[in-house]
């Protein structure tokens, strides 16, 4: 039995544009960020980076047999991560000391100056894009209409969470709106995580620190800001992983088309969910 279908215009052009710009920026910023991190692959807490007080350190060690091993040290505990963290090789060459491997960094080879150029250019794109989207969403009602949770939404958090765990996703007209967990995670990323990453990035700027002396202090010091910048970025990667997972299980093609063309297809009430 063919279920009746209708198409709705789900994502406005500014949403789609800023979505893809954000995706591009994230890939470039994370990979160039890892290139920058590799210049000093350790993290600390406070203002200073005392070598004996690193929270995390990626390093290479030489075994008595003359082998190079990659070591990840977290809070004093060491893990062998040869080939990925601490020591890896480009192509088929020898293992060499390198925080993150060349396939994860931009540029691939060790090249801090170029990594910084990529990072700061796309940081501007990321920030201006984010500000533009937020302003548009506020002024044109996208924020209030589609993203801000209603009272009913907030009361249904537990139920929505259970539905997510059981892979029961809204169908029909309900699928045309964001559910409450979706709203909260989007809001959290747009107005929580992304500004946190930008603020901790800015806190590492010595010129800005002279202007806004409390900024690094907000995070416990410049080195703490660097650590938070790093951890928050991985939280963002976690969000992207969850996002891609949900996109896939709730209809990969339908979702992908709607974020490209804007058009989303929904089945009528009572229909099966769309798992095209």
């Amino acid at each position, binding site marked *: 039995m063919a279920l009746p279908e209708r198409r709705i215009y789900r994502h406005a052009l500014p949403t789609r544009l800023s979505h893809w710009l954000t995706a591009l920026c994230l890939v470039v910023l994370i990979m160039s960020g890892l290139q920058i991190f590799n210049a000093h692959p*350790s993290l600390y807490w406070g*203002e200073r980076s005392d070598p004996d007080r690193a929270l995390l350190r990626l390093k290479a060690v030489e075994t008595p047999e003359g082998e190079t091993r990659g070591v990840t040290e977290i809070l004093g505990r060491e893990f062998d991560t040869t080939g990925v963290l601490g020591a890896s090789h480009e192509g088929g060459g020898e293992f060499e000391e390198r925080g993150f491997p060349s396939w994860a960094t931009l540029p691939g*080879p060790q090249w*801090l100056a170029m990594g910084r150029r990529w990072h700061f250019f796309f940081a*501007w794109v990321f920030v201006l894009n984010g500000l533009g989207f937020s302003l548009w969403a506020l002024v044109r009602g996208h924020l209030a209409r589609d993203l801000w949770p209603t009272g009913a939404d907030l009361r249904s958090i537990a139920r929505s969470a259970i539905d997510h765990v059981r892979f029961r996703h809204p169908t029909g007209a309900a699928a045309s709106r964001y559910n409450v967990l979706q709203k909260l995670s989007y809001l959290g990323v747009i107005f929580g995580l992304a500004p946190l990453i930008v603020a901790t990035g800015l806190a590492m700027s*010595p*010129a800005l620190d*002279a202007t806004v002396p409390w900024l690094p202090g907000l995070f416990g010091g410049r080195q703490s800001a660097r650590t938070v910048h790093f951890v928050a970025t991985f939280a963002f990667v976690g969000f992207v992983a969850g996002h891609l997972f949900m996109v896939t299980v709730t209809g990969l093609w339908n979702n992908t088309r709607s974020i490209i063309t804007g058009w989303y297809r929904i089945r009528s009430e009572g229909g099966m969910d769309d798992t095209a």
Partner: protein
Amino acid sequence: MTPRKGLNRRQFAIRGLQLLGASLLAGCDALSQRDWFASMLEGAEGLTRTVQKIIVPRRALAREFTDADRSPVFRGNGTINPSEPEYQALASTGFAAYRLEIGGLVERPASFSLAELRSLPSRTQITRHDCVEGWSAIGKWKGVRLATLLERVGVKPAARYVVVHCFDALKEGGDKYYESLDLEDALHEQTILAYDLNDERLPLTNGAPLRLRIERQLGYKAAKYVRRLELVEGFDAIGRGKGGYWEDRGYEWYAGI
């Protein structure tokens, strides 16, 4: 769908993703080599500099810390013992024969011995040094304000930058280290030529006998082993023309971020 077909399809998808990833990476690395792309990325430096110049008040001071905040060891980075014979000769006599020369676009070119520099009014500051690599160290610097020296020699109206020429080459026989700063930073209250670190004579590893402290920019601007200052209108004719040793190698001239 048979399992066999699914496996092939999955393999195909994985292979495709790997290829896509590899070509994206190769594409990005190729872009890095292109002049037009590199200069587009460089555009961001101009934007950052412009915005920071607007936001950061000219006289804003970098935060000063207390004695207790200092790093147990102030790390030496880059050159830590210049091998140049001329430098070694000066170092062996405790820099007794050292003279800081100031020339270029100045009214009265002059040179100063370390004793003369020490007899001038001094400034002491405990500041955080932020290396472009990502690490930070806090140290107590004592030295003479660059503004004090510039006042003595008289800056000609045409001068726009102070070029700091150094004794050391990072690689033996290679280009000598140098840096440049604009007059706004040169006259800044915390811009000093430091001769003491943590209440002792500046150690060899940290730039003896004299190092520049410029506190609102990254560490590579704070040139060590200072030999001579030159006031210039532009730095196109110096080194490779980008205003500094690391700038000539792709780093930003404005290192406020």
